[in-house]
């Protein structure tokens, strides 16, 4: 069981959170031409890194906010969490 530091509520049990996928994916710019390949990449293709990974998590049973988590996918160690408008250093 992970203990995750929500930027709004502090340390909470993993039970209160939902995993939200890769936090580095950027949505293509609005009103721009985009190829099918690029769209396919945005919608479906994800990296599966071994080691540090920036992810999105949702504090679904808490403050109901999305935030970023930098986690090691091997050890599950959490290095940093940040609000959506903050950068993970």
């Amino acid at each position, binding site marked *: 069981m992970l203990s995750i530091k929500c930027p*709004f*509520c*502090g340390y*909470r*049990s993993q*039970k*209160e959170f939902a995993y939200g996928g890769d936090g580095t994916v950027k949505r293509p710019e609005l009103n721009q031409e985009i190829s099918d390949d690029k769209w396919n990449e945005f919608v479906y293709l994800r990296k599966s890194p071994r080691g540090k990974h920036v992810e999105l998590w949702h504090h*679904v*049973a*808490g*403050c*109901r*906010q999305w935030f970023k988590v930098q986690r090691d996918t091997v050890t599950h160690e959490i290095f940093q969490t940040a609000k959506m408008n903050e950068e993970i250093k």
Partner: protein
Amino acid sequence: MIQVSSLNFVHKVGKFGDHDKKSDNDLLKVSEINGLLIFQIAKYKNSSFDTSKIKLDGLSFPSSLNSTSNSKTRILWYGPDCWLVFSYNLDLIDKEKNQFNEIDFAITDISHSRTIIELEGSLVNEVLKKGCPLDINSLKVDNCVNSVYNGVTITIDIISDNPKKVRILGLRSFGESLYHSLTDSCLEFGYKAV
């Protein structure tokens, strides 16, 4: 329209669990709180309105993980820029509406969609610990936290420390499950449903 409380067919008055040879003061007390006006106030993300100016029934909005209260109204922090208001003043929204303009705030009446269970007694913390992953002992009076109880999303509102009194809020649709979950946890200590 007739209002039927969410636990109307579930909550039975009496003593249950290990209550033999125990005085009423030693038993946990479980009750349903109903007949309240409940509404959610959410400030829009693009709003720069200063909420510290607002006084609702004389109460300011609480900081994170806290609540403010008077004899009739409680305001709970429910998330960033989001608050839950509970009041016995059933016309509170109508009275205070002019403080909240539609550009900055969304106000939603959710009086019909919440279950509130109140637990009272010295063993309340032990009951909560059985299903909730929080550090329950660190919670003090006027703290309020969202969490889970045996998988059901809840809000815990600490009403008083002496006597220990806590309100557990859940969605009405989960009310029956939450009630059974809490009362099952109370059986070991003995409880009086009032």
